[in-house]
């Protein structure tokens, strides 16, 4: 500013300027000086000093120019000085504002660099719970069947032999009873009926049909019990979902279609299905239902090249038993077997969950170790 200090402290007349021609170099010099010194305003403090030096009301450069050049000028020169001064002021004000914004931004980014959060650190951890895996699978399966018109019902776990066996066409001494080793309750002497822990969710088929007339479309989630010694694949309590559809027009094709729909929803569209004839007293025809192994794609060979551990090389995994409701069952619930037909199935949930999530020990479901529970949030 030194370079212009002298000129701005003198009147134009003192500087020998009497017309616009002589005025231009003077303003050019002031402007050049401003532009050259602008960089001095590098932080908030120096910016304020710089701003005051130029725009200060009393001693700022522009105030001096007003006082010394403009005010004493002759009326005709005043107009020209005024115009030049306004232009200069516009330039100075714009540049100083520009500078302020730049300084503030700079300050922000340096503060940001200093105060930035470490994103690799955890946030505040709030405890959050989880649904049991078996419950998750239950829910998933329920949702699939509800979406195709099946209602959900429940029944007691402590049953009579009538509902668990007889009404399902399994009379006493039927060989199938040998395969379903059963827990019985200790009852007071003279009790009217023995009580047992249901060996399947099928008794609820009977309880449902006793209560309602076709059309019936229900699924029954629940716990079931078989008197097997526990090991990695056996638990004396486990979970099933029973399904039952009875109507005037249900055929085997509806049955396979329903099962296929379920499996594709649950395992994915690429899974293939297979129905093998089997035998259950309460269905006829009875089937065992297989899916192509979802782990090796049905090839029987694991990705590593060895035999697939999930299907043991068979390419198929046996999922559950099912079939068309045996007409004899309708006799127990007063349905007309000549007019209605239907299908039933029983899906083992624990096994399905083990398959889908690669669990090799059924006992982990019931130990409830929080390290297990945490894995399925």
């Amino acid at each position, binding site marked *: 500013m030194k370079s212009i200090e002298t000129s701005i402290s003198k009147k134009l007349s003192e500087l020998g300027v009497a017309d616009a021609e002589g005025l231009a170099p003077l303003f050019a010099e002031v402007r050049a000086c401003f532009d050259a010194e602008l960089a001095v305003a590098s932080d908030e403090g120096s910016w304020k000093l710089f701003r005051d030096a130029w725009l200060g009301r009393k001693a700022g450069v522009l105030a001096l120019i007003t006082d010394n050049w403009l005010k004493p000028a002759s009326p005709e020169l005043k107009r020209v000085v005024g115009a030049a001064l306004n232009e200069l002021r516009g330039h100075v004000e714009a540049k100083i504002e520009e500078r302020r914004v730049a300084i503030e931004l700079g300050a922000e980014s340096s503060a940001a660099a200093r105060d930035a959060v470490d994103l690799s650190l*955890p946030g*505040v951890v*709030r*405890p*959050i*719970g*989880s649904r*049991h895996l078996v419950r998750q699978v239950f829910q998933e399966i329920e949702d699939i069947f*509800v979406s195709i*018109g*099946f209602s*959900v*019902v429940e029944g*007691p*776990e*402590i049953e009579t032999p009538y509902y668990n066996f007889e009404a399902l066409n399994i009379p006493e*001494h039927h*060989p*199938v009873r040998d*395969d379903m080793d059963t*827990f019985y*309750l*200790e*009852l*007071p002497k003279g*009790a009217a009926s023995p*009580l047992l*822990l249901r060996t399947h969710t099928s008794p609820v088929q009977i309880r449902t049909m006793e209560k309602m007339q076709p059309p019936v*479309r229900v699924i029954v989630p629940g716990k079931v019990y078989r*008197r097997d010694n526990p090991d990695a694949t056996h638990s*004396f*309590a486990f*979970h099933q979902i029973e399904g039952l*559809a009875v*109507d005037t*027009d*249900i*055929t*085997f*094709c*509806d049955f396979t*279609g*329903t099962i*296929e*729909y379920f499996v594709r929803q649950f395992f994915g569209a690429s899974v293939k299905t*297979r*129905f*093998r*004839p089997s*035998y259950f007293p309460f269905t*006829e*025809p009875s*089937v065992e239902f297989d899916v192509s192994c979802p782990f090796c794609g049905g090839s029987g060979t694991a990705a590593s090249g060895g035999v697939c551990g999930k299907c043991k090389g068979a390419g198929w995994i046996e999922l559950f038993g099912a079939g*068309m409701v045996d007409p004899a069952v309708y006799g127990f619930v007063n349905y007309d077997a000549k007019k209605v037909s239907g299908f039933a199935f029983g899906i083992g949930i624990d096994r399905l969950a083990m398959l889908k999530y690669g669990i090799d020990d059924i006992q982990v479901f019931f*130990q*409830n*170790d*929080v*390290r297990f*529970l945490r894995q399925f949030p």
Partner: protein
Amino acid sequence: MKVVYDWLKEFVDVPVSAEELASRLALTGTNIGGVENGPHGAVIDAEVTSNRPDCLGHLGIAREVSAIYKTALKKLPSTTGKLEPAVGGDALQKVRVDIQAPELCGRFTARVIRGVKIQPSPQWLKERLEACGVASINNVVDVSNYVMLELGHPLHSFDYDKIRDQRIVVRRASAQEKTRTLDGVERVLDAGTAVVCDGDGSRVVGIGGIMGGADTEISFATKNVLIECAWFDPIAIRRAARALRLHTEASTRFGRGADPEMAGAASRRSAELILQVAGGELQNGAVDEYPGKQAARKIRVTRTEFLRVMGADVSDKELEATLGALGFAPVRIDDHRGAAGSLLAAWECAQPSWRADVEREIDLIEEIARIHGLDKFPPRLPAARAGAVRLPHFEAEARLRERLIGLGYREILTIPHVAEERDELFRPSGVAPARLANPLSEEAGVLRSTGTVSMAASLEWNLNHSQRNARLFEIGRQYRLVGEESVETRVLSIGATGEAREQGLYDGARDFTFADLKGDLDAIGMLAGGFRWEAKASDGGNHAEPEWLNPAKRGHIFLGKEDLGVAGQLSRRVADKLKLRQEVFLAELALGPFYCAYYGTKNARRYEPLPRFPAVERDFSLLLPEGVHFSAVAEAIRALAIREIAAVEAGDLFRGRNVPAGKYSLLARVKFQSHEGTLTDAQIGEFSAKIVAALTTQLGAQLRASV
């Protein structure tokens, strides 16, 4: 049932390899355990379902092959003419048979061969038995087993000379009657068991259809042989085998239902083979007592019914070929016999004696469908006929579960079988548990009468596996007996131990306390209109004072008048018994009333307009005598019936230091709110004065300060 591929081929031409056959069998109803290629060629492990005893012999499997591949069954060549007549002949002079229990024994045939030479079996016979996993004993006994494996019909051979009076009596055993079977074990019989006796019928020489007796066993000294080939009632056999805990190849076959007609053929086949491998001379003819003979049942199958059940068709030709090959001899009987594929087509079939399982039209439909291939029926989705409905408590349970998870609880599932002594720790007095009559072990001898017993066990598991912090819940059932009736009740169990907040970057650790449990439960209670806590159970309620909870830190939870359950800290006594070395908190609530209240509250909930004027809070720092509870303070304030009082809360609690003994310091925070205007200092001052006066006079409170 082990099926020897080469043996099978003696009955039917098999157009494919053993492996291919096995996979076809698997898809037509014979489950396959595997195929082994051993010294006896391919052996297929057929896991025959219990309804198909006919497939417990090579002939039965051959019949399946014949139906699958539509190749005819072969006839076995007969080698001797002495088998005729089928009934009568010299045999009648050699043995008499008297069936005194025809309801247990429907047929009994006997043949006699004299002058046999008992010796080890020839190689071919040994090998066949070995391939099927049956031990070789001697030539005559081996023939019995061979014929059983071939034709599926069990036989028994007696040492003829040891049969007294050349007389066989089949009768019901008397209760507690004893006999020694040929495995050397003395068996105690009951009245439901058929026994084969000799002489006057007093000596048991075999348990009918299950195992022969030791007294008349074939030995190397045996010269003359009596071949028994009989038929026993399946239900009686199963019952007897279970009672005796004696399950044999014979009892399996008779128990599932052997073919009564086969008895004659099997006897002939057996005689033939004995002559071949043991020599001797066959007495002409046979004794054949057959009180249970039945005429073949006629069964109809129609195309309309087939379509009604299966939803897709099978051609006339295939249907007839399949039923024909399986022995059902189908005959078209409708009026449209010329028209192939007629929708009105009907066939009459004859039930073969070996297929007791096929009695109805549906059974025939299954036969046709399974041989046709179940995968050939085109899948389709049935139309939904009504809206699908969730369980009535679905929504309430989902909200409850969601809230518990939000509060940090993990859901568990447990097995309700627990040890009686464990159950007792938590069981309210007067409750009868559901005990198992046949538990697997004492540790699982009773069904839990409370959810907490399982919850405590789950916490115990975690503590024993170094998982010190756990917050768990279970939505399950408790099981009890009332008289001879079982009662299953839905309950929520909650368990927590360890830290409520773990040491982290921003906060220090804090142990779980009773207040955490209460707060969490109240958060649940909000779903159902809010819980009320009481120190004591309601009179006559089903939750007596729970001795398993620390009396200083427990409470009863009510919803309206309903006593839902209890919550608190596990007592030291029970914790020590379970070896739990840190504080454990448990709660159990009945869910039925909770779910009801959930829906009631939800439906009754209405919008409350938001206040337009600011609320004002005043804190009252009180010195209260011990024993005067916060509820009394809140009650006294509310009793003033000042409309502008919107809430009374406990702000701070303090004992000791400047607080004299026998007193405690409580900060009561009162919120004033008017819907008419902004409250003035004068109004608040007036309210406060009333509050202070009420607390001082009614509760003996001293005001430390009010702000």
